[in-house]
């Protein structure tokens, strides 16, 4: 089992003929993902691919609606330039695609204020933008997370970062902790899926036995997630927060990684997580040992069943 993507995922790629889109489409096909359609306006009728990994060539369409109708795609991944990303997301939502993963970095935040309610009104789930996507190891990869650092197993992972996610996934895998699904929700101030959406999905996924959440400075998403964990989760959660040394008021690469006034600091987040029963590693390497301890404790004492989680309608 897994969350959001599995063996039934039929993936469409928006921007399949671009530099990033074509490179990562090959990687996803090699990983075993069923890539069923591509979209590039003006290239409808062409095909993508050379039969690598015994995969059939991928048909290309001019619009998402055409591609969805012809192929029955049930997920899409977006690799278009930043100023076109909002339109690409809305096009996918309007075509009825239920899962939209936007990899693009640099989407204007005001664009996202319009996209978010549009996606929600169409009942779709958006992951990202500015995210590495997600992977269900051994089954399906949507986005850019390197497949070789992941392994199947019982750990759910959710993160706001890209390469820091790889660092921690790699350490988990080396320590023998495989993953159900790893989700990168993205580092922008407005994104489609938040920590709570992923935590509640992991709580509901029978194959996931523990969760690692990787946050960073800026905003209150981690704090909200911590309160959710203490109220609604029976499974152990351990955390890591990046940006303890970040100066206030400066944007640390990610558009969302900025400390405003006294809110959004790493110290505040570490404190709230710890108070909510989520141990936080001082170093990335500590996450593995914390996880080992929590899983041993969890199976020995058996935490009391949590109250049922409120289902959130995430955009």
């Amino acid at each position, binding site marked *: 089992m897994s969350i959001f993507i599995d063996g039934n995922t039929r993936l469409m790629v928006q921007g399949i003929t671009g530099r990033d889109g074509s490179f990562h489409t090959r990687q996803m096909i090699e990983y075993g993902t069923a890539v069923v359609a591509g979209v590039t306006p003006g290239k409808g009728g062409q095909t993508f691919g050379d039969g690598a990994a015994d995969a059939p060539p991928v048909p290309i369409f001019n619009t998402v609606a055409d591609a969805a109708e012809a192929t029955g795609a049930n997920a899409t991944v977006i690799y278009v330039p930043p100023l076109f990303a909002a339109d690409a997301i809305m096009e996918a939502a309007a075509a009825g695609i239920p899962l939209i993963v936007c990899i693009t970095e640099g989407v204007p935040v005001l664009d996202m*204020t319009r996209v978010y309610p549009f996606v929600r009104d169409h009942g779709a789930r958006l992951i990202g933008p500015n995210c590495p996507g997600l992977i269900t190891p051994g089954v399906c990869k949507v986005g850019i997370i390197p497949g070789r650092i992941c392994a199947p197993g019982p750990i759910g992972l959710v993160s706001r970062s890209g390469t820091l996610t790889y660092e921690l996934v790699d350490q988990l895998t080396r320590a023998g902790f495989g993953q159900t699904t790893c989700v990168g929700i993205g580092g922008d101030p407005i994104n489609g899926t938040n920590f709570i959406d992923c935590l509640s999905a992991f709580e509901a996924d029978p194959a996931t036995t523990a969760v690692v959440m990787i946050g960073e400075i800026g905003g209150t998403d981690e704090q909200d997630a911590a309160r959710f964990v203490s109220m609604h989760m029976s499974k152990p959660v351990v955390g890591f927060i990046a940006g303890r040394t970040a100066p206030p008021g400066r944007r640390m690469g990610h558009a969302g990684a900025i400390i405003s006034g006294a809110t959004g600091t790493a110290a505040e987040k570490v404190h709230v997580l710890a108070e909510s029963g989520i141990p936080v590693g001082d170093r990335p390497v500590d996450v593995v040992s914390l996880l080992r301890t929590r899983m041993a404790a969890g199976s020995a004492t058996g935490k009391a069943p949590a109250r049922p989680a409120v289902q959130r309608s995430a955009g």
Partner: protein
Amino acid sequence: MNIHEYQAKELLRRAGVPVQPGEVAETAAAAEAIAARYGTAVVIKAQVHAGGRGKAGGVKLAKTPVEARAHAERIIGMSIKGLVVQRVLVAQAADIASESYVGIIVDRVSKRPVVMVSPAGGIDIEEVAATTPERIRRVAVDPRYGLQPFEAMQCGFFLYRDLHRARAAARILRQLYEAFMDSGASLAEINPLVSTPAGELVAVDAKISIDDNELDRHPELAALRDETAEAPSETEARKANLTFIKLEGNVGCVVNGAGLAMATMDLVKYYGGEPANFLDIGGSSNPEKVVNALRIITSDPQVRVILFNIFGGITRTDDVANGIVTAIRQHPLRVPLVIRLTGTNEEEAVRILAGAGLSAMTDMDEAVRAAVAQVGAETAA
């Protein structure tokens, strides 16, 4: 991207907002001439991207043109929070009956633009929020419909009891909202919005920040960037497509990815070191980026050791290795180098580095400890 007060006021003026008249001067003589032309008392205001200008002596009232000249002479060239004042705004002094705050930000919780107003103007809104939050009214605007007249009027009556000024404030809010959306701003505020004894409203100070991601869409706003108002290393980094923030320590960091870059800085600190910078070389690998990154970091005389932390995904570690070798051939390093790289094309990267007499580690924790130890060893020696 922050723009100066005079630039923000010009955007507001074009949107129809009543703005205190003023002009920019780069010399004391020009300031005197503007004051003489106005024939009123003027305020001389330093144009720098720093808060607390008044406390630093960068804002002065001048009753005569001669006084304006004297103030401008002192303010131009003065340093406020490390930034040298290049120009001043010479503005007609306003008669102040009361001061309010009006502003718009993008709120990550409601995921909407949020209009904020407060009758407690002239002071930092974060201070008002901390001490008297009941004196702030917020409206989360649905961007699909825009700021509605009734929402603006609610804010207007929160600020003023009389219909005349409530209407005027509502009009200004809608104009501010238009300017905010049209310029792709992440923040736009008028503080203070002054009510004169005659009951007229006028914007006396203004601040606008543009979302960097909007600049490709607004070349006219991108042109407002004042490079003299930024650290030179940050300007150079931006031109090289690197995200760079200078800090006070001595361990130079070159990392791919923002989250890993922050985690690397944190680990440097954990082991007793101080990071000299945040630097993200980004996802797509390109040896040229690494060359630029090394040049920017080595130009900081405080840097005593350089730490690379590269987790290859999209980034090819052999590209990074090529960049390191090229950079060192061009400019031999005067500080030790600690390299951690793992991931895509790692074997090739190690071979390239070995060819130049360099070695690499694969473990992040070990590499950070080694880098911090270098600084310690040097200090002890």
